[in-house]
């Protein structure tokens, strides 16, 4: 699904981790929802956005948040 080179993906991972800390526990859900909307808008493709939502939802119930 992603065409991003691994090195870039790794930077994305690190940037996200740091940004969640920056948002703080009170606002992390709001931050992540805003991030999803911003990325969806930049993506400009409702089908791809829906697929992304589906991928992120799949298997979610198996996990307990940390």
């Amino acid at each position, binding site marked *: *699904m*992603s065409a*991003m080179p*691994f090195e870039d*993906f*790794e930077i994305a*991972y*690190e940037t*996200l*981790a*740091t*940004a*969640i*800390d*920056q948002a703080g*526990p009170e606002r*992390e859900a709001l931050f992540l929802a805003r991030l999803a909307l911003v990325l969806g808008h930049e993506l400009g493709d409702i089908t791809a956005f829906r697929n992304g939502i589906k*991928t*992120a939802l*799949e*298997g*979610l119930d*198996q*996990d307990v*948040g*940390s």
Partner: protein
Amino acid sequence: MRPAGKGALESLYFDYPQFAAPRVPELDGAATRHPVLIVGAGPIGMTAALVLARYGIRSVLIDRKDTFNDGSRAICIARPSMHILERIGAVAPFVEKALGWRFGRSYYRGEQIFRLEMPQPPGEKYLPMYNLQQQYIEQYLHDVVAANDLIDMRWQSELSAIEARDDGATVRISSLAGDYPLNADYVLAADGARSPVRSMLGLRLKGDNYEGRYVIADIRMDHDFPTERRAFFEPAGNPGGTVLIHKQPNNIWRVDYQLREGESEQDAIREDNIRARVGAILADIGHTRPWELEWWSVYSANTLCLDDYRHGRVIFIGDAAHIVPIFGVRGLNNGLADAENIGWKLALVLNGEANERLLDSYSPERRGATLDVFANATKSTRFMTPPTRGWRLAREAALSLSLRHEFPRGLANPRQMQPYTYSGSRLTPYAGRDAEFAGGPVCGSAAPNAKLGDGSYLLDCAGNGMTAILFSAGPPNAEQAVLLAELSRIDKRFVPIVVTSGGWASETKAIADQDGEIARLFAAMPGALYLLRPDLHIAGRWKAAVPAEILKTAGLCLGSETP
């Protein structure tokens, strides 16, 4: 630590020898000035002594203990370290006893999400990694040290004071046989992470400490699984913490498990807790039969090093100079590379062949290697032990997506490190020549190996000095012959290797490369020349020999020229 009722050195499988303090000439008033004093007879100190001895340099090697190390527990020996062990004449028992490996698996909540596969090019003599307990590593090195007349091994001898000067050092050594002063031209401090030499000189390691703590435990069990690295994220057997499992010889297994946030270290290292936690982890991997507890300790990741590994005539090697996280298995391996790096340089200086400024290249090269480890280790440590909520959440997201998707799986790569490339070193002045090659090993990197027709290997031919690998369709032409003769003149240990695609190999010592495999490995056309350093890193490569540059590079590596 060992189970209740066991002595400090009472192992399930290893008999610790006991070495006496020798009666030394200094106690009878001798005031010998020794070329090199090595403080600490761990793997790094012993290797340094053996590298020096290979060049005919005597050393005194002291250790305060009366036997091998029971604290530090390195187990992974990487391929370049096997080459170092080979060059100091110690590798045979390692090959026989150690467990070689190249694969690993990472699991998330019990499901495999990542398959680690370390490359094994067909020409390599050794596997990427070998597991062997540190006690055996030390025992095998000590067997070679004890048989070498150039190494004066003194157990139960503790350095109690050091006076470092511009022209050497005077130290005070305390032993059961008595206290005495000892003079040395150079001191190699291989005295470990808590280096007393470092403290006595008022030097401090700088860097970061990481939050996550791990218990490391060795157990004995009859467990059927190949020698692979297994990493378990969020396993049922250790909720909230990562687990690592490595196989060692003698049916010994290393189990590392992360302590939960807020867990007390004091409680965690109690024997009953160790048994309960290890038992739960073993049940989770399907081992329900009995197992025995051998030893355990607790560990947290650090990235710490000295600003400069050299302080005049005192030079730091191994953990005394740098502490790296265990996850990249670079502690022992980088220490061995330190010992070899300073070993050949110091030997040339002490033999009067090299200007002392050759030693200036040690710290930039080896500290560079440490900083490179830090950069990678920081990433793997953040993944193994996420430091904050943000990192924990991001990891949980990546790992849970890894169950069904390929794209995040690489984040679980343990990044078993490659040897460092000395491309920016002052001993690698023509790295720009890399642009002439379409591939092959770059300037400063460790030379690749190739298997030869007779079953031996290309790097078996390399010498203790500089080695040139000349690719040629026929015998060297007049200009090449003059260059090789000139290299022999400036380096008495110089070894020329001619790799030829032609049919004249049988009449000379040239290596026949009929199918062109070696030439492909080095991306070399006829006329190309690779110059290797004594540590088999590539000092330079030229598509067509440029004698002035090649002689300049050799001169820099030999310390006969200064930049």
